[in-house]
């Protein structure tokens, strides 16, 4: 089995766990770059033999080794996508596709640098958590990351919206319909008693929880 394919399957299993559906029967490998034709069920068994996965009653679970490897792939993939989308303004579909390739060859050192460059983001552009790297990384806070949450801006600062990670879709739809969508420039007017931002000629008041889900690139 190619290591590319093993990576892809580990990634798929990880996502299935996040979705709460780690069933062998419903797994579907999304990135199929450079992997050719394969029989998923056979591959799963092969990986069980290799000591990466545990198959039991239709469920797929990781061994410790498998989990560590999957975690690193996911971290590389999601950081890469953040980098492509936030900093390089690559579209979602394209960035997803490219991240599928990046995840295979980014070295650990480069991955950590990307994480630092982005200000140690916690979630990917789709709102899924990015596994942390070295222990203690969670507490690192850069002086001025390129991309930051709206809640970290100071009053009067101007920023361009990079992406939104709302905890539910309706909130996303509402924000976008109010004009808060990636690319627009906003001004933060106020932080208490509620966040007040201005987008174009629209002034919006929002809860800190919502402001926390808006990622921006400071312009001043």
């Amino acid at each position, binding site marked *: 089995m190619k290591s590319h394919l093993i990576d892809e399957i580990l990634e798929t299993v990880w996502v299935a766990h996040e979705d709460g559906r780690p069933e062998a029967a419903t797994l579907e490998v999304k990135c199929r770059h450079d992997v050719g034709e394969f029989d998923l069920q056979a591959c799963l068994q092969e990986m069980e033999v290799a000591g990466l996965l545990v198959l039991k009653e239709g469920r797929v679970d990781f061994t410790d080794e498998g989990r560590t490897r999957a975690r690193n792939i996911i971290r590389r993939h999601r950081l890469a996508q953040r980098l492509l989308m936030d900093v390089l303004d690559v579209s979602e579909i394209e960035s997803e596709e490219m991240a599928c390739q990046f995840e295979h060859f980014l070295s650990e050192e480069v991955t950590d640098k990307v994480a630092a460059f982005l200000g140690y983001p916690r979630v990917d552009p789709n709102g899924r958590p990015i596994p942390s790297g070295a222990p203690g990384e969670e507490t690192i806070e850069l002086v001025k990351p390129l991309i930051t949450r709206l809640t970290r801006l100071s009053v009067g600062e101007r920023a361009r919206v990079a992406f939104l990670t709302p905890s539910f879709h309706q909130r996303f739809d509402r924000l976008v319909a109010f004009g808060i969508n990636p690319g627009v420039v906003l001004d933060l007017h106020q932080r208490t008693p509620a966040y007040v931002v201005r987008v174009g000629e*629209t002034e919006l*008041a929002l809860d800190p929880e919502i402001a926390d889900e808006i990622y921006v690139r400071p312009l001043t």
Partner: protein
Amino acid sequence: MHRHVANPAEDTGSATIALIGNPNVGKSVVFGYLTGHYVIVSNYPGTTVEIARGRLAWEHYRALRGQNRYQRSARQRPNRGRRGAHHGRTLRRSHAFRRRHAAWEVIDTPGINNFIPTSEDELVTRNILMNQTPARILQVADAKNLRRGLLLSLQLAEMGLPYTLCLNMTDEAQDRGITIDALALSEELGVPVVETIATQKVGLDEARRRVLDTKSRPKEVPIPYPEPIKKATEELIPLLPEMPISRKSLALMLLSGDATLTAWMGTTFDEAHGEVIRSIIERIRRAFARSVSVEITQARMRAAAQLLERVVQQRETRLISLTQWLGRATTHPVGGFAFVAAVLTGMYYFVGVFGAGTLVDWLEEGLFGSYIIPGLSWVVETIFPWQLLRDLLIGEFGLLSMALSYSIAIVLPIVGTFFIAFGLLEDSGYLPRLSVMMNRLFKAMGLNGKAVLPMVLGLGCDTMATMTTRILDNRKERLVVTLLLALGVPCSAQLGVILGMLQGISIGAAAIWLGVVASVIFIVGYLAAKAIPGQSSDFLLEMPPLRKPVIGNIVIKTMARLEWYLREAVPLFFLGTFLLFVIDRLHLLVSIESATAPVVQSFLGLPVEATAAFIMGFLRRDYGAAGLFLLARNGQLDTIQILVSLVVITLFMPCIANLFMIIKEHGLRVALGMSAFILPFAILVGGAVNWSLRLLNGVVP
């Protein structure tokens, strides 16, 4: 020969003009202009969303006719000389004309930001377009916020619905350095674009003319949807039935995962057909990590932004106007509270002192006390020989002597002044800012800042306020606020009497009363928000710029609300009075008094007469307080007793009109449940105040 004025089949029947637009763009002002005053506000079936409907005002037909005559005379010049001879026929023709056009109906839909429903408002508006197919659509957009307006325009175009775009508030846009090339925009969209300043009636004539004329389909603006979505849309289109809106727009609605269409799908498609459609939707859903609706909305937003670039010029203005400065100041973390205090004080003087004092005195004692009631009494006594009927009409608990004078002479001036004050706040754009200031407090309770609006209204009249809980986003918040209104927010009538009694004792006592009531509201609100299932809604509120209110609009609004009050609340006062009359006749009051004596006397430490006041309080909130006022003035209550009785009467059962309103809004079960909680709870809190004050004082006076 005079048949050509209009094609009846096209212009009559159920012809409807729907007004559509984002919130706060001035739709209601345009609506008021088109309809005049004959407006019916009703709930959209099955929802709490209110839709205003009205007939196109007569003067517009006149204008229309004038226009037609002008066209005719231009074409039929040779006939002009004979017009005098046909005077009779012209008149008849005008009647016919009026009949034909009287069918134009105007609907004011709730303000929305998107046609992909995320709220009941958006769902209702979408359904009106999808199912009722208004013959004409007038989209009102805020010229300075055109991007958001265009998001709607693009969707209207995609639906293939003919519409006219009204760029409103062009004056404000100009002040902000925004210039819109209306002609170019009209070209791009393929629809008439009219620039207006609705509050000054600028351009509205033109908008009305264009909207009645426009029947052609708009141009479709290309929208850069992601490839998979484009492909799936094309696959879906041949599977969908012919609808009033285009199949493409329907396909995109289905792809966006619009759950509200599930029922429609179930009835429209057979099993196999539905399965094919569902599999396409599912495939697309899986292809995107983010929701498909977000992809679709973002693509539309991109198209809107591109369009905007071609037609709008923005001069950078760093100039901050006075109203903008004021707008900032009203939400300032510190200064904002000074504004809150100033606004509440202003309202207290206008509603509490002027409305509940001066006007009520004048109406109740002057007009009603000296003229109307004695006059009616005389009439009743002259006409009816039966004592029972006389009592029912003009007795102590008479429908005329009590219900009529109460609802017209006492409550009407109070809610009237309140509505004027509320209308001023609403039109000036201050209310959302008040919500911002109070958001923290309400958030701590598990509600959000919007809940402050019905609570403030409750200080005017709880019955009315219960009705306005409809503005809240979900059932949970409506229930909690309804409970808090019923429990702890004293209405203005009651508040007046309570303040009168507190004045007689001490500032400290007033502080204790306020502290107890406020903490009860907070604690009960907190617990109720925990206990009632459901998510609390997002606090995501648009703050329109502060504006100078236009008096004419406030007058129209206040009149509409007063009509609402007279139609919906006044009958409840009559029903309540009738019940009081029955209780009095059956001598139930005395039996209740003796039955509850142990609780009232031992637990609350109050004289037995207080029971009657509490029962009255259920029937009329201030009546109860007035009963206590009398007891206190006669020296039958000491300071602690006054405090305890005030706490109990404030927290006590909502008045009967309010209770009926709760039944109407939330059903009998909820109303009974709330009462079952409030009644013992009010007595419990009263008892706690009684015992703790007596323990602290160490003496029983």
